[in-house]
């Protein structure tokens, strides 16, 4: 019994996603407190100039160092970086009113866009308690001037527009999530990261980022510093990102008779796998479900638990990335149960065959065998 207790207590249990980030941020803040000068940024009155700088790109040679610093990235992005899928953009700063900013490192595929930036304040600030970063306005456009990401302070963060063309109002994509993290901040400078998850980021040779005003605030928003300025940063996207490819897997067999095999879609990218499937809710399913649950809540019974995973032929398991709600979910629409998910398996972990293992709310195990 004692061995059993030991084993259970040593098993990994769920931890909040932001635990590691919170720890790193707390430590950064405590160290910065020791060194910073308590000088509050003064008001700025002069009209700012806005410089556009086109940065050039070189290879990143310190992937491990970057992973250590990048918060909020999925295991899939981490795996891609470990395999050299990252580029460094080390050049000039874009100057504006209260600070100058430059992009430092860059990762992009169909699902993820991760950009780290460094800023230097034009006057020293009191950086104590500052943990959160928010752009008052940010737009990212591709080479055809499509807005691939946009967010401003007056809109709800969940209602971002993505892929909305400048010229017409056709929304091509509707699912994305967005986060910013402060890596380090002191009285003179800041390192921060933008993580964007989306469904179909373009294979664009350039990206234009426009940032207007940045808010830095404490965890409880009881302290805020606003950096005024407009920063236009053009990035020449390295070839490996715009010439990227994805790998589609096809279904060989599935143990669930109700699942529509043709609806199963599994595509692997550099930073993860997008998986989706559909199940038509017919009388057979309804009957089975009602036997299980008298209330007949079909959606709950069909729901797929978060212990879902993909297993490769080497026996390695890859779980859901769970960076945001946008990455996965399920629902019933027009009598069809839909499930979509993002897994942490990347192009660097693939074998010819893969196995998808899903557990339903009812407790059934669905196994889907896939092949390249």
């Amino acid at each position, binding site marked *: *019994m*004692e061995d*059993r*207790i*030991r084993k*259970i*207590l*040593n*098993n*990994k*249990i*769920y*931890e*909040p996603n*932001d*635990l*590691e980030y*919170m*720890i*790193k941020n*707390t*430590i*950064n803040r*405590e*160290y910065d407190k020791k060194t910073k000068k308590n000088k509050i940024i003064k008001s700025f009155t002069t009209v700012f100039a806005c410089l556009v700088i086109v940065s050039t790109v070189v290879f990143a040679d310190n992937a491990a160092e970057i992973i250590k610093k990048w918060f909020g990235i999925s295991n899939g992005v981490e795996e891609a970086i470990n395999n050299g899928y990252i580029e460094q953009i080390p050049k000039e700063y874009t100057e504006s009113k209260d600070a100058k900013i430059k992009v430092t490192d860059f990762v992009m595929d169909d699902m993820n866009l991760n950009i780290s930036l460094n800023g230097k304040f034009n006057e020293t600030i009191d950086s104590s308690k500052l943990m959160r970063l928010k752009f008052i306005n940010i737009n990212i456009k591709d080479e055809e001037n499509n807005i691939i990401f946009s967010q401003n302070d007056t809109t709800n963060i969940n209602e971002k527009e993505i892929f909305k063309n400048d010229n017409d109002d056709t929304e091509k994509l509707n699912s994305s999530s967005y986060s910013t993290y402060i890596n380090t901040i002191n009285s003179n400078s800041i390192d921060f990261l933008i993580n964007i998850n989306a469904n179909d980021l373009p294979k664009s040779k350039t990206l234009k980022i426009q940032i207007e005003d940045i808010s830095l605030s404490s965890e409880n928003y009881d302290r805020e510093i606003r950096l005024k300025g407009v920063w236009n940063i053009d990035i020449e996207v390295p070839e490996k990102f715009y010439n990227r490819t994805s790998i589609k897997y096809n279904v060989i067999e599935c143990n669930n008779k109700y699942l529509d095999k043709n609806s199963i879609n599994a595509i692997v990218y550099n930073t993860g796998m997008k998986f989706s499937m559909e199940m038509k809710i017919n009388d057979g399913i309804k009957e089975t479900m009602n036997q299980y649950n008298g209330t007949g809540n079909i959606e709950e019974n069909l729901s797929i638990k*978060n*212990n879902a995973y993909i297993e490769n032929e080497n026996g390695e398991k890859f779980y859901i990335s769970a960076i945001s709600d946008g990455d996965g979910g399920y629902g019933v629409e027009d009598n069809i149960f839909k499930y979509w998910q993002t897994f942490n398996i990347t192009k660097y972990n693939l074998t010819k065959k893969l196995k998808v293992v899903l557990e339903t709310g009812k407790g059934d195990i669905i196994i889907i065998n896939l092949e390249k």
Partner: protein
Amino acid sequence: MEQLLQEACKGNKEAFTKLILEIRHDLYKIAKLRLNSDADAEDAIQETIIEIFKRIKKFNEIKYFKAWCIKILINKCNKIYNKNKRNSISVEDLEIENYYIYNTYKMESDIEFYSLLENLNYDEKIVIIMFYKEDFTTKEISKIIGVNENTIKSRLSRAKNKIKKYYESKEGINNGR
């Protein structure tokens, strides 16, 4: 770890960060024994880190580093727990709410972990986890918690009996008894 601690004591931020990250799983598990909400557990860990940071320069006994951190954490957790009580938030309500939260989202191993501990009171939980998970002796646990060693021994024995009964009844059910 010894090297990391030495570097952290000298003020090396990287080393300090690594040191804390290495014990973060233990800190979280212990915080969750006392505080059901993730937000409270994170607050307790955050306050613990700040306290460790302030005092680490005076500390260089690698053997007792984890014990020292856990001691600080337990105190921080107790403070938050008592504050919640004072603020008349029903601990029972919190427990029900959080039971629902972590039983909705978490992994298979969570069920085993929390089920094992659910019949124990807090004093028994902390002793069980320190003895079986952290491998502290009863003497060390008594120093960390500040309770007589004999009390620790009796809590441990009581907790083991409860777990034994729990498994017997569970296996009885599984065997159709």
